[in-house]
């Protein structure tokens, strides 16, 4: 279902719906009137294009020259490929078997003819002359004119002089007719095929010497960097596979946070990776093959470093992050990210560097917000508190066996629970306990953040917790 103008129309129908008499282009209201139980989905042209590109990639094994014909066609140039699959018929069958969709196929000497036969011809038709003039895909007025003139088929039109056709139906009609008949060339725009970034060294004799291995790795990196440079890419992930002469394989993977093709940097990351291995690399009797693959690469333009300008700080930081992440593991590096909540433990989150959004300045706290502690206890620590009056600030509290006399206190700062996050939170008594926070300082000058969990009308005996420490 798609929006065309102001009406919702069917963009595509399933085989079953087509059997019920529904056709693409029909208004949704008409279709619903005929079949009230009609199930519809919004039309997603982007997903269609992606699926088409996916099929094109899958059919690459039949021919290297595949051009997508949006919205729903593919043109395969099988010149010189058919015999590999046992002839044209067998190739067609193999293509049908390789795709999960129903399709109409047509073979012709050139692409526009095959396209027109597939879209407008009957199954198995090879004769272009009997195709309807619709196959020229001319504007509506030109088609209407052709019909009025009694020209129903391509063959009938082709029999007329070109000058007369051009004069009556436009020059475009002649161009399209000549392309369809193979008299004018229409270049095919096949999908560019990128060879995967994989570089290999095979050795006649196994290589076991560390210096030799390092030299070959450097050479592989040099090759990879050359190709990346040609394609304007930078590596984000690299995978080194070392095949030992006894059949064992060792794989080393590294990742960079910025695309890079700096061999020194990549080599340093590999060094870190090797240093962090639990059991060190053992070449045994030597390596037969070394293979360097780049599974993930991103565009990276050529950089012009300034002569005097300071080095880019963010690049230096990214390099440090990569080195530490390669050694410690990416989950060990984290950044604080603010969250939209007024509860202190939910107002922030520790997010691993790899998933963290780009650092943005911390949201400024409200002007009347009392100070927050430097360190938060997770979970809050239960404490025993004696208060002067039940609703007042603590007078003395006991934490980890130590008694702290409160010298100065400020509060309460009352924070309600997030009742909207609870299943029955809008009902009285189910919204969670309110917290009364107090900022207190003991006799030694240590500042604590205590809270009483629950008001006296919410909990009969509210408990006290230590939630944070101030500097």
């Amino acid at each position, binding site marked *: 279902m798609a929006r065309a103008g102001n009406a919702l129309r069917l963009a595509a129908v399933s085989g079953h719906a087509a059997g019920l008499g529904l056709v693409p282009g029909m208004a949704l209201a008409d279709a619903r009137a005929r079949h009230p139980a009609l199930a519809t989905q919004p039309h997603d042209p982007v997903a269609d294009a992606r699926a088409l590109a996916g099929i094109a990639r899958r059919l690459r094994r039949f021919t290297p020259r595949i051009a997508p014909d949006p919205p729903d066609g593919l043109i395969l140039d099988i010149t010189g490929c058919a015999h590999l699959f046992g002839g044209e018929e067998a190739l067609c069958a193999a293509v049908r078997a390789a795709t999960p969709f129903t399709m109409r196929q047509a073979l012709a000497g050139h692409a526009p003819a095959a396209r027109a036969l597939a879209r407008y011809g009957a199954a198995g038709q090879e004769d272009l002359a009997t195709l309807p003039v619709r196959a020229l895909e001319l504007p509506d007025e030109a088609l209407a004119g052709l019909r009025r003139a009694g020209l129903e088929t391509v063959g009938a039109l082709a029999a007329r002089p070109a000058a007369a056709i051009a004069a009556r139906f436009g020059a475009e009609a002649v161009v399209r007719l000549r392309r369809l008949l193979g008299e004018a060339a229409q270049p095919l725009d096949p999908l560019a095929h990128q060879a995967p970034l994989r570089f290999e060294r095979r050795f006649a004799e196994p290589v076991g010497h560390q210096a030799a291995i390092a030299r070959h790795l450097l050479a592989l990196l040099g090759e990879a960097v050359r190709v990346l440079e040609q394609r304007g890419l930078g590596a984000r992930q690299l995978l080194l596979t070392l095949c030992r002469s006894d059949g064992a394989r060792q794989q080393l993977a590294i990742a960079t946070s910025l695309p890079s093709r700096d061999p020194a940097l990549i080599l340093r990351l590999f060094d870190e990776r090797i240093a962090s291995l639990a059991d060190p690399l053992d070449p045994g009797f030597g390596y037969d093959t070394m293979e360097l693959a780049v599974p993930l690469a991103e565009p990276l333009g050529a950089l012009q470093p300034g002569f005097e300008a300071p080095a880019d700080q963010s690049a230096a930081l990214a390099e440090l992050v990569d080195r530490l992440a390669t050694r410690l593991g990416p989950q060990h590096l984290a950044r604080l990210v603010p969250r939209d909540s007024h509860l202190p433990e939910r107002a922030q989150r520790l997010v691993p560097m790899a998933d963290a959004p780009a650092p943005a300045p911390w949201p400024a706290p409200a002007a009347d917000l009392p100070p*927050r502690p430097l360190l938060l206890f997770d979970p809050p620590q239960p404490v025993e508190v004696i208060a002067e009056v039940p609703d007042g600030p603590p007078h003395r509290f006991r934490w980890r066996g130590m008694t702290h006399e409160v010298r100065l206190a400020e509060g309460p700062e009352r924070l309600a629970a997030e009742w909207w996050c609870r299943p029955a939170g809008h009902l009285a008594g189910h919204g969670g306990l309110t917290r009364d926070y107090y900022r207190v300082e003991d006799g030694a000058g240590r500042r604590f953040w205590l809270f009483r969990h629950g008001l006296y009308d919410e909990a009969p005996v509210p408990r006290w917790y230590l939630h944070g420490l101030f*500097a």
Partner: protein
Amino acid sequence: MVPDLAAVPLAAPGAFPPLARGQLHEVHCDAADWASALGFALAMAGAGHPGPLVLVRGPGRGAQLLQPCGAGLALLGIDPARLLILTVDNAREALRSALEAARGAALAGVVVEARGALPAYDLTVSRRLVLAAERSGVGLAVLRGDAPPRPSAAHTRWQVRAAPSTALAARAPGPPALLAELLRRRGGPAGLVWRLEWNDTDGTFQPCGEPASPTSAPARTPPSGAVVSLAARRTGAERSRAA
């Protein structure tokens, strides 16, 4: 270690040497004063340079229980977006990571948290850290909680303790205050004690004299009649916001 810092007369505020960039500093503290020592180290490291700060957090239950709070860091002049938190499995890894980080010039500072004895931290390792910090100009601080001082190549060694703050109106705790004793300093006098108080206008810890005793403060003497004490800040606003 230090028996009672409060009894030691305070040194002149002008002689206070801030934790310089490009040097290695050791900050000793009791476990109870951890937040004060961390605030001291982070605020000192973060003040001199706008770059990112690396906080290397060690293993152990103590470290896992306490999480840095973004809003609290912002109060000490450190934008939490600048903070890179590194969690490591052992002390050796912590020192290696700190060394790695100190070699990059893009950072404002590196703070290493270490609780208890730190056998991996010896003269050689600390000398390496010193060299890396001197070359790159990154400020390095090793925070040592509940640990006896060990011989090291650090430029300064501090003992930090929370200090009673200057009370605000209505007996509310004032800005962060701490006592810092310079235990050791390469090429300089040591054994001096300063009382540092957070200065919100300057965004730094600044040495200052003794606070006015809260017992002599006029707020202490209760006015006649039943009067409800007023909070220093308007906390009642919280209720309308959260409810």
